[in-house]
C-alpha cells in the first residue's frame, strides 16, 4: 500500500465561496447582500498587522499581536456577565489526535488549522465552512508528539501554513487554493512544521520541529508573494561561526535546537524574537560537551536578514528536554522594554529586550534540576541532575513546568498568567545510535512513583517580583494556553475538558463549560457584527462562546 497513489490536495468549496468571490468584485453590493454571505475579507496589509490592537474584533496573528500578549481589549464579555456565557457553535474537524489551533479571524471569517494539516475557513458567526483544505501528506512522516498544527499567519489575500512534511505553503484566503508550496527541508531527516508562521512586512517567518530526531534546527523567511526563501538562520552554528565551539566534535551536525513556537516582533527596534528547543539527543549530554548554542535560547534577529543581534540561553547543555519554546512576551514596564518568559525549566525570566541581559529569574513551579545561579543570575544545572542508566528523579519532568501552550500578559492587572504543570519524572539514559530520520533522544523517562498524583495550576505571576499572586488548581497537568481580556477575564482550559473564565484580579472562576475532551490549545477572542466570541479547540471541535 506504500506505493498506492494518495489523492492530491483535497478541498471542498461551498456555494458561499462563490458568493464571496462575486461580492468582493462588486464591493457596492456588499452592504445590500451582507445578510446572504459572510462579510467580505478585506486585504490584510502589513500596516494592519502592526496596528492589530486597533481592530480588536479581529485576531490577526497567532498570539493576537506582535507583542505575543494574547490579550484583547474587547470587553463586552466581562467579569459582570461572564456567568451567562453560552456555547454559540462548534466546528468538528473529524481529525484524530490533538487539536492545537489558535484560529485567526479577519472581518468575520475565521481561519483555522486541524490535525493532519487540515485548513478551514468558516463564517465566524455560524461556524459554517466556506472552504476546507487538507494536505496530502506522505505516508512515512513520523512527526513527534502528534500530527498537529497550531495555526496560520495572514497577509494580503493569502494565509500561510507550515506542514508536517516540512513544506511552507500559501493558500488563497478566499478559496483555499494553493498559491505557492515550497519545501523547507526534506522531512525524511526528521523535520516537520507545526507552528503558526509570523508575518513581518512582506516576509513569512517560520521555524522547524524535530528535536527528537537529531536535526539541525533553523528559522526561515519566505517572500509572502512568491514563496522564495529570503534567509535561513541555523540555530546550531556551523564551522567558523560564533558559537560553533560550544559543540563537541561533529555533534553540531545533528544538534537539534528546533524553533517550533511562533516568535514575536518589536517594530520600534525592528527586532523579531524567536525561541529554540533542546539540543539532540535531548536527554544525554555525552558526546556534545559544551553549552550547545543556540539550543534552549532566546534569539533576537533582524527580520530582513535573519542576522543575530543577541541571544540568551536559558538552559545550557540541557539534558532534560527543557525546550525554551514558549512565546517570548514583550512588555513595557516604566521605561524598561522587557521580555517575559515562563520557561519549560520551571523559571520565570525577565529579560531586557534591548540588550538581552537577564534582569531576574524566579521559580514558578517545583524545580530540582538547579539550586544555584551564575554571576548573571541565570539558574545553572546541578551536576547530579543528569539522567543516569538507572534513572534519576528530576523536576520539572520531561513535559516541563509549562510547554508550548501560550501564556498571557494583561496590561490592566499587570500580571502574567501561565499554565504550570507539577510533574516530576525519572530520567534515564539509553545510548541510541544516530540514524537520519530515526528517533534520537538518548533517553527514556517515566512518571515517578510519588504517592500523590501530578497536578497543575493556572498561575498569575507579578513580573516585577516573580511572586505568584493567585493560582487556580488543575486536578491534573493540562495543555491549555491562556487568554486575557479587558473585560477583567482570564480564559483557560483543563485536561478534564473544562473551559473556564476566571476573574483576572482574583482568580475566582466565574463560568465553565465541559467540552467533553481535554483542551490542547490556546484560546482567543473576536467580534462580528458587534458580538464578542471566545473560541477554543478541544477534542476534535472548535467551540465558540458568547453572551446569550
Amino acid at each position, binding site marked *: 500500500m506504500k506505493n498506492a497513489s494518495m489523492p492530491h490536495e*483535497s478541498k471542498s468549496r461551498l456555494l458561499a465561496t462563490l458568493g464571496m468571490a462575486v461580492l468582493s468584485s462588486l464591493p457596492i453590493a456588499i452592504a445590500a447582500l451582507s445578510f446572504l454571505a459572510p462579510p467580505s475579507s478585506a486585504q490584510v496589509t502589513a500596516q494592519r498587522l502592526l496596528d492589530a490592537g486597533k481592530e480588536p474584533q479581529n485576531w490577526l496573528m497567532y498570539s493576537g499581536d506582535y507583542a505575543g500578549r494574547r490579550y484583547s481589549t474587547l470587553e463586552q464579555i466581562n467579569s459582570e456577565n461572564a456567568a451567562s456565557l453560552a456555547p454559540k457553535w462548534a466546528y468538528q474537524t473529524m481529525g484524530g489526535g490533538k487539536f492545537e489551533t489558535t484560529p485567526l479571524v479577519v472581518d468575520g471569517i475565521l481561519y483555522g488549522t486541524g490535525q493532519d494539516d487540515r485548513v478551514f475557513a468558516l463564517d465566524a458567526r455560524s461556524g459554517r465552512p466556506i472552504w476546507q483544505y487538507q494536505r496530502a501528506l506522505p505516508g512515512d512522516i513520523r512527526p513527534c508528539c502528534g500530527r498537529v498544527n497550531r495555526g496560520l499567519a495572514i497577509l494580503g489575500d493569502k494565509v500561510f501554513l507550515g506542514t508536517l512534511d516540512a513544506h511552507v505553503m500559501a493558500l488563497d484566503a478566499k478559496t483555499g487554493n494553493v498559491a505557492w508550496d515550497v519545501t523547507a527541508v526534506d522531512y525524511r531527516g526528521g523535520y516537520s512544521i507545526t507552528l503558526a508562521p509570523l508575518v513581518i512586512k512582506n516576509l513569512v517567518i517560520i521555524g522547524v520541529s524535530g528535536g527528537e530526531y537529531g536535526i539541525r534546527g533553523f528559522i526561515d523567511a519566505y517572500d509572502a508573494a512568491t514563496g522564495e526563501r529570503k534567509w535561513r538562520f541555523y540555530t546550531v552554528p556551523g564551522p567558523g561561526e560564533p558559537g560553533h565551539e560550544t559543540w563537541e566534535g561533529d555533534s553540531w551536525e545533528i544538534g537539534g535546537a528546533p524553533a517550533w513556537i511562533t516568535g514575536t516582533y518589536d517594530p520600534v527596534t525592528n527586532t523579531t524574537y524567536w525561541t529554540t528547543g533542546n539540543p539532540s539527543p535531548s536527554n544525554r549530554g555525552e558526546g556534545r560537551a559544551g553549552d550547545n548554542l543556540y539550543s534552549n535560547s532566546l534569539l533576537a534577529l533582524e527580520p530582513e536578514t535573519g542576522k543575530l543581534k543577541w541571544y540568551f540561553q536559558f538552559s545550557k547543555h540541557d539534558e532534560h528536554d527543557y525546550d525554551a519554546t514558549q512565546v517570548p512576551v514583550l512588555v513595557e514596564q516604566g521605561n524598561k522594554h522587557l521580555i517575559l518568559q515562563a520557561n519549560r525549566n520551571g523559571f520565570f525570566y525577565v529579560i531586557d529586550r534591548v540588550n538581552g541581559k537577564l534582569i531576574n529569574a524566579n521559580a514558578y513551579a517545583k524545580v530540582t534540576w538547579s539550586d544555584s545561579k551564575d554571576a548573571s543570575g541565570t539558574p545553572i544545572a546541578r551536576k547530579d541532575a543528569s539522567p543516569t542508566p538507572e534513572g534519576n528523579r528530576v523536576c520539572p519532568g520531561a513535559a516541563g513546568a509549562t510547554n508550548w501552550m501560550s501564556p498571557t500578559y494583561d496590561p490592566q492587572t499587570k500580571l502574567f498568567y501561565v499554565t504550570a504543570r507539577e510533574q516530576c519524572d525519572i530520567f534515564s539514559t539509553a545510548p541510541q545510535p544516530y540514524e537520519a530520520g530515526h528517533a534520537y533522544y538518548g533517553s527514556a523517562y517515566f512518571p515517578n512513583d510519588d504517592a500523590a498524583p501530578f497536578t497543575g495550576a493556572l498561575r498569575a505571576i507579578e513580573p516585577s517580583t516573580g511572586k505568584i499572586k493567585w493560582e487556580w488548581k488543575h486536578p491534573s497537568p493540562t495543555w491549555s494556553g491562556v487568554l486575557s481580556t479587558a473585560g477583567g477575564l482570564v480564559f483557560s482550559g483543563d*485536561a478534564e475538558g473544562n473551559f473556564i473564565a476566571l476573574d483576572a484580579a482574583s482568580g475566582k472562576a466565574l463560568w465553565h463549560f465541559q467540552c467533553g475532551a*481535554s483542551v490542547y490549545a490556546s484560546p482567543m477572542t473576536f467580534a462580528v457584527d458587534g458580538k464578542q466570541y471566545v473560541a477554543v479547540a478541544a477534542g476534535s471541535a472548535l467551540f465558540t462562546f458568547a453572551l446569550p
Partner: protein
Amino acid sequence: MPSLWIGLQIIRRRDWLIRFSCVLTAAAMLVCAVVAPSAFAQEKNPYAGDAKAAKLGEFQFRANCAFCHGLGARGGGRGPDLTRAQKRHGSSDSELFRTINDGVPGTAMPPNGATQQGVGMTEEEIWQVISYIRSVQVKAPAQPMGDASHGKQLFYGSAACSTCHMIQGKGGRLGPDLSTTGSARSTDYIVESMRNPSRRLAQGISEAMKEFSQEYETITVVTGDGQKFMGVVLNEDHFTVQMMDTRENLHLFEKDKLRSLEKSRESLMPAYDPKSLSDKDLQDIVAYLLLVGAQ
C-alpha cells in the same frame, strides 16, 4: 475531499489484514484495488533472534514504551508486564506488530506515532522492538505454583474479594473488575495490591485525550443536607465528582454544593496481612487471577 483521504489512511494502517480495499471515489464509484503486500504485511519478524536488532529495539522501547511498560518491559504503573509469553492481544509476531502499530482501542495503549511520549517508529523499528520483547520474555513464566481452584473458592468465599470485585461478570463493583488483571499486571503488583493496597492505587477510567487516568481514591462527602457518603472516586474534574459509595450507589456531586469533601489515598480495600490471608492462600488467589487473565 478529506473523507476520502481519511479512508485511505485507515486502510494503510490495517493493510496486512485487509489485502484489498474499496474506496468510494469523488465520482461516487466504488473502486476496489488489490493492495500489494509490502514489508508491512509480513507475518514473521525479519529480525527474529537477531541480538543486535534486539538491542536497537531496547532503545526504541525505552524511548517509546518504557514510560508505561517500565524499564525492562516488566510492567509499570500504566501498562502491563510484557515479559509473559502469553499476550492477551495475541502472541504471534504479526499480532504483536498489530498491537504495537494500532494500539489497543479504548485503552491507554496508543497507536504507533500517536503517543505523547516518544515519536513514531518505522516498520523496521517495530520489528526491532518485537525482537527486544522476545529477548526479555520469560520462558517458564515465574508464576507461583498456586492452586487456582482453591484461589477461586477463596475469592468468592472466605477472603470475600468478590464483595468488591467482579470477575467475568460475577461479584461487586466497588473495586476494579479483575477479569484481566492477571494478564495486565505483574505478579509482584498483584501481590502488593493485596498486602499493601494503598501503596499504589488502581487506575480507573482513562479518557481518550487525558494524560493521567483517574485513580481509585477514597472519598468521603457530606452533602448540603447533611447526608454522608463514603466510597471511591470514579471521575473527578475541578467542579464535579462522580463517586460510588460502599453500597454501590453512583453519585454525582457539584463540589461547591457540598458541605465537605475529603479525599484520601488510603485504599478502601483492606490490607490482607499474612494473618488474615496466608502466603499459600495468597498464591492460590494469584494463580486464579492469572488463570482467568489468560482466558
